[in-house]
């Protein structure tokens, strides 16, 4: 069969265990080169070109490139450029990369998968001539380096033509690229061609931007002044960290930077309720948001509280000094409960990714060193080197972080690509899609080829396999302008006085079959993302707006859930079926409301709507009695100019009775389906749960309520709902809504999960107060619903299963992706609203009513319900500015006082909004206090006097919605499109 040799590998682990594994060496691994005549290649294995054209000046002959591991790890952005082709990746390298960084590994795999790049993976570890055994005492790294050199030498001799037909021109060399000096030296001694990446890249023709993309990983960062002490304490070595965590001296957790204060952050330690607070540059010790870090807790007497300060890193380039921070962070009053505080002593794993942002040019002309300011405030500024600063200065760019040496104030990084002009709406949209990791490229040809051919007709076979409901008076109710209609309803009175109610959901799973390209794409996208002026579809438009959409008077496939309900809305029986329906009319909420209200209308449709409405009211009442929460979040809608797509007017979303009518039945359908699929698939049903938040989450809410004399009971969902209902102040109509907004922020995120992976009693949906829940009703815009449709179809015998559907681990992996994409889609949506708010305020000055949401030590956080905007209002003077009024902060009562004016949470205020365009790169909305008036502080309203210069004292920046401290938001909205 094959030549196999058995080699033994011995590894020791734990209590010394000898593991002996076989390692087969093969003689059928080919070199992958088209020039080679010795190997018995299959055609599809010939990846490397016969005579690769050299674009390099120092190596002006045909050659292949072979990469060292560190090159792949550090210079992946260079590799992603099309300039480097004909590259050999050794298996040794691939394995090491996989081990060290899964993100780089994934990117490398993407490159390898691209046939144009001509990357060949050579399995050197199993090749009989290139396998290298580790010598006694040799380190793994040294052994790998040696293996790489052996492979280079093998390639060189393998590609060397026989003496007889040696012709100069078809003679391909192999060049090893390495940044490791020792490896380079050894390779040179062996007589191999070798270069550093830097040298190689600098001599590539016709690729100007390539050099900028070089990672700064190895270049040591020297201080301009030189000779100063390192700014940060050094990190512990991995073994020290490992030991520390084992002995309990150190804690491991992921670092979450504060959005408001760049010198503060928290570490969420696994298995601990409370987060560990870290403060100050030294305390943070070069951790970047998302990193997995090791923290050392400080002794109890040094514990601290979050500083209540809003701080931004405003310095242009502070050089390498750390600011005087003691004044900033020392707010160690005794009366408040202190949080566990610690210092970060080591980084376990970096979670660096690519960041969008802008370039802040170096004031020194001609310098190549610049500062990059990320769009996300949680991320520190980054030092980069680029020669294209002039063209990039007014563009949004993408940068990646390479390293953060101890003596640098900021991390070092390199330029990846430019997105477009700042302020341009397309660029900004692109930025927010990228920042939120939303896949938004056009659907590929393979995906589009999965679509059904037009004209699409219903065949005889389809009719036979489905229940024909075309005779039933079905209608759909949706927001205006909705083109992806995925649900429709009907209601009929039965002879026994009961009602038959049906919910008909677009049968997307009929068109999206498992395993097809379109299915994979939809699973990746997971959800349709709604931006203010744009919709990023999960499935191609032909499906989302036509074949699947339940348009009025069109025959469509549906998945129906039909109940018999009593007059009291008790479910008598439930059935599910695949059906064909014809919606009589696609209505808006308003139209449906009018039909219900107009009692002169006695047609079937109006009657059925009235029936639905009355049943929905009973359902809703019962649900609220069970303890379902009614929460609020400021949601707004932009009236967009039809031509320029610029926002012209803002309105908050209105809620009508019909909204909740549709919502109730969708909830009922979801619950019924959840029960059904769990019954049939106890292990792999895709469900949705909403965990009860830990009590500590409610602290701000309880505090805020207590300050105003309301006791908020948080023991159970029902108690909470009740106490929220009771907290009404006659003098402040918005008070209750504000409390509900606060309550929303205490909530956990609802998540999808596979039923086999979670304990049964954790299935509970807290917000809706139901024991089990899933998503069934929006398959056009959510992938989870498609999975649920498939499960339900199997359980009613309308479809067959496939392996992945019944694998609970795969379902769980899938639901992780769905959860992640959903969260990102939500953030992207909010960021889009913020972007449009900025556009809306261009050249406008307006007075608006707002409310104090939180009182901070040096600022007020204000919510403007009309725009759903939340901002920080600084009360203490900015640097170099004098303020002739002082505010007194009372932490206990959460108030800010100035003279006889005091601010408490939920107090109404009037503020003046305008857009500060002085900094082109960073437009922000400025607000000035109008009412209550404070002499020398507030400004007159726009109407009375035209605005004067002089008062720069009180400004309020509107933080981007994405960066406002909205962390947890219940995804209670079932029906918001």
């Amino acid at each position: 069969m094959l030549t196999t040799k058995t080699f033994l590998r011995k590894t020791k682990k734990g209590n010394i265990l000898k593991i002996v594994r076989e390692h087969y060496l093969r003689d059928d691994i080919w070199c992958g080169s088209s020039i080679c005549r010795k190997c018995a290649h299959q055609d599809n294995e010939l990846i490397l070109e016969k005579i690769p054209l050299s674009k390099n000046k120092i190596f002006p002959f045909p050659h292949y490139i072979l990469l060292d591991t560190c090159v792949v790890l550090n210079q992946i952005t260079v590799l992603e450029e099309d300039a480097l082709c004909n590259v050999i990746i050794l298996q040794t390298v691939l394995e090491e990369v996989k081990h060290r960084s899964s993100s780089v590994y994934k990117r490398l795999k993407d490159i390898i998968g691209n046939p144009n790049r001509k990357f060949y993976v050579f399995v050197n570890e199993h090749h009989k001539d290139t396998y290298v055994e580790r010598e006694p005492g040799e380190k793994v790294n040294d052994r790998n380096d040696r293996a790489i050199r052996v492979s280079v030498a093998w390639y060189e001799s393998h590609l060397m033509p026989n003496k007889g037909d040696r012709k100069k021109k078809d003679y391909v060399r192999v060049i090893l690229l390495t940044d490791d000096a020792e490896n380079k030296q050894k390779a040179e001694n062996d007589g191999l061609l070798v270069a550093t990446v830097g040298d190689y890249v600098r001599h590539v023709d016709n690729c100007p931007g390539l050099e900028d993309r070089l990672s700064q990983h190895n270049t040591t960062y020297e201080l301009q002044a030189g000779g100063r002490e390192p700014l940060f304490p050094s990190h512990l070595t991995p073994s020290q960290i490992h030991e520390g965590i084992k002995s309990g001296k150190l804690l491991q957790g992921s670092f979450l930077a504060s959005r408001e204060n760049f010198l503060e952050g928290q570490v969420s330690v696994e298995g601990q309720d409370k987060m560990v607070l870290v403060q100050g540059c030294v305390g943070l010790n070069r951790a970047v948001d998302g990193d997995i870090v090791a923290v050392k807790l400080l002794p109890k007497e040094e514990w601290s509280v979050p500083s209540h300060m809003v701080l931004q890193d405003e310095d242009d380039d502070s050089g390498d000094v750390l600011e005087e921070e003691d004044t900033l962070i020392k707010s160690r009053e005794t009366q408040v409960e202190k949080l566990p505080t610690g210092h970060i002593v080591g980084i376990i794993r970096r979670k660096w990714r690519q960041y969008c942002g802008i370039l802040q040019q170096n004031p020194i002309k001609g310098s190549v060193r610049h500062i990059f300011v990320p769009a996300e405030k949680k991320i520190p500024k980054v030092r980069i080197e680029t020669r294209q600063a002039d063209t990039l200065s007014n563009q949004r760019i993408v940068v990646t972080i390479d390293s953060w040496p101890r003596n640098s104030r900021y991390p070092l990084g390199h330029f990846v690509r430019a997105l477009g002009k700042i302020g341009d709406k397309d660029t900004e949209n692109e930025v927010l899609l990228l920042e939120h990791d939303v896949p938004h490229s056009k659907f590929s040809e393979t995906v589009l080829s999965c679509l059904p051919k037009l004209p699409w007709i219903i065949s005889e076979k389809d009719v036979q396999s489905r229940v024909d409901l075309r005779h039933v008076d079905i209608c759909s109710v949706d927001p205006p302008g909705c083109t992806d209609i995925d649900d429709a309803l009907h209601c009929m009175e039965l002879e026994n006085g009961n009602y038959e109610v049906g919910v008909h959901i677009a049968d997307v799973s009929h068109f999206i079959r498992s395993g097809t390209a379109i299915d994979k794409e939809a699973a990746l996208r997971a959800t349709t993302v709604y931006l203010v002026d744009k919709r990023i579809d999960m499935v191609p438009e032909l499906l989302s707006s036509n074949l699947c959409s339940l348009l009025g008077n069109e025959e469509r496939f549906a998945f129906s859930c039909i109940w018999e309900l009593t007059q009291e809305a008790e479910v008598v029986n439930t059935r599910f079926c695949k059906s064909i329906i014809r919606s009589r009319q696609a209505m808006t909420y308003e139209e449906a409301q009018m039909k219900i209200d107009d009692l002169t209308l006695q047609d079937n449709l109006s009657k059925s709507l009235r029936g639905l409405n009355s049943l929905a009211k009973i359902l809703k009442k019962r649900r609220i009695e069970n303890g379902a929460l009614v929460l609020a979040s400021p949601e707004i809608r932009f009236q967009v100019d039809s031509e320029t797509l610029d926002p012209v007017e803002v309105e908050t979303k209105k809620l009508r009775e019909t909204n909740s009518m549709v919502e109730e039945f969708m909830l009922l359908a979801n619950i019924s389906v959840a029960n059904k699929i769990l019954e049939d698939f106890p292990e792999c049903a895709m469900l949705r749960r909403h965990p009860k938040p830990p009590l500590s989450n409610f602290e701000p809410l309880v505090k805020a309520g207590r300050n105003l004399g309301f006791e908020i009971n948080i023991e159970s969902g029902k108690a909470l709902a009740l106490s929220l209902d009771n907290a009404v102040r006659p003098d402040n109509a918005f008070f209750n809504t504000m409390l509900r907004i606060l309550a929303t922020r205490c909530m956990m995120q609802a998540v999808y999960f596979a039923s086999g992976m979670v304990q049964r009693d954790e299935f509970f949906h807290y917000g809706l107060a139901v024991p089990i829940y899933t998503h069934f009703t929006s398959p056009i815009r959510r992938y989870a619903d498609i999975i649920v449709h498939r499960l339900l179809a199997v359980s009613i015998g309308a479809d067959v299963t496939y392996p992945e559907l019944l694998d609970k681990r795969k379902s769980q992996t899938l639901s992780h992706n769905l959860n992640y994409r959903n969260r990102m889609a939500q953030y992207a949506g909010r960021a889009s609203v913020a972007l449009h708010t900025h556009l809306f305020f261009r050249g406008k000055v307006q007075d608006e009513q707002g409310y104090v949401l939180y009182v901070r030590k040096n600022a007020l956080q204000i919510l403007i319900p009309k725009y759903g905007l939340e901002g920080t209002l600084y009360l203490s003077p900015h640097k170099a500015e004098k303020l002739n009024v002082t505010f007194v902060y009372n932490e206990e009562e959460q108030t800010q006082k100035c003279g006889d004016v005091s601010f408490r949470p939920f107090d109404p205020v009037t503020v003046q909004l305008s857009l500060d365009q002085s900094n082109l790169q960073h437009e922000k909305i400025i607000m000035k206090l109008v009412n209550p008036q404070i002499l020398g502080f507030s400004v007159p309203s726009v109407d009375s006097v035209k605005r004067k210069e002089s008062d720069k004292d009180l400004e309020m920046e509107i933080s981007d919605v994405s960066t406002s401290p909205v962390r947890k938001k219940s995804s209670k909205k079932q029906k918001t499109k």
Partner: protein
Amino acid sequence: MAGMHLLSDQGLRLDGRRANELRQIRCKLGVFSQPDGSAYLEQGNTKVLAAVYGPHEIRGSRTKSLHDKALVNCQYSMATFSTGERKRRPRGDRKSQEMSMHLRQALQAAIRVEVYPRSQIDIFVEVLQADGGNYCACVNAATLAIMDAGIPMKEYMVACTASLGNGDVPLVDISHLEENSGGPNLTVAALPLSGQVALMEMSQRFHLDHLPKVVECALQGCRDIHQILDQAVRRHIEVSGAVGWGIRPQVKL
């Protein structure tokens, strides 16, 4: 996730085999002189000894004796040093008992037991080193030992395992590493020429759609192993002639 990356993009498994390749098999018949038949078999790093005594009269209580066929008695044991961590009991634990039963089930189906009514055949197998596919190695070694003992069989009884890599590629003859990575594990003991299956066992689950190809993969493995065993038997006979083929060299008194 476990069981996901048993097969690399280049189509090689963790130890460098392709999906349809067996581990290296080495075997020897007639390794002991005491028993009537014996064999030693290596399947990769899994190493097994088998010894066969009989057919002889029923030992112990006569009640066990069967009037129409021979009683096949199997004992499976694992040497204490056979696994990574030292085993406490070499035999008699639940797992070994189960293995013994399974061995008996498979071997009884291949041996022509009806030729020896009211008698007993003892088969002892000992795993010296366990590296996945222990049961298969035992069945294969026992088959060789029975051959060596000259006991008539219908056909070679051959066993092989198969698994599923990357969710849909069947892998043959899985090693300990692959067994432990959490994928499904199908064991088949079959008569390769007639294609009859004597025993089939599976741990873990996979979708029914995969079953035919995984079973086919295991059966193909059985056929390949059969070839190797057959060669070994033929070579053994050529080399040692009648010696070791049932007739022991008589010790001259």
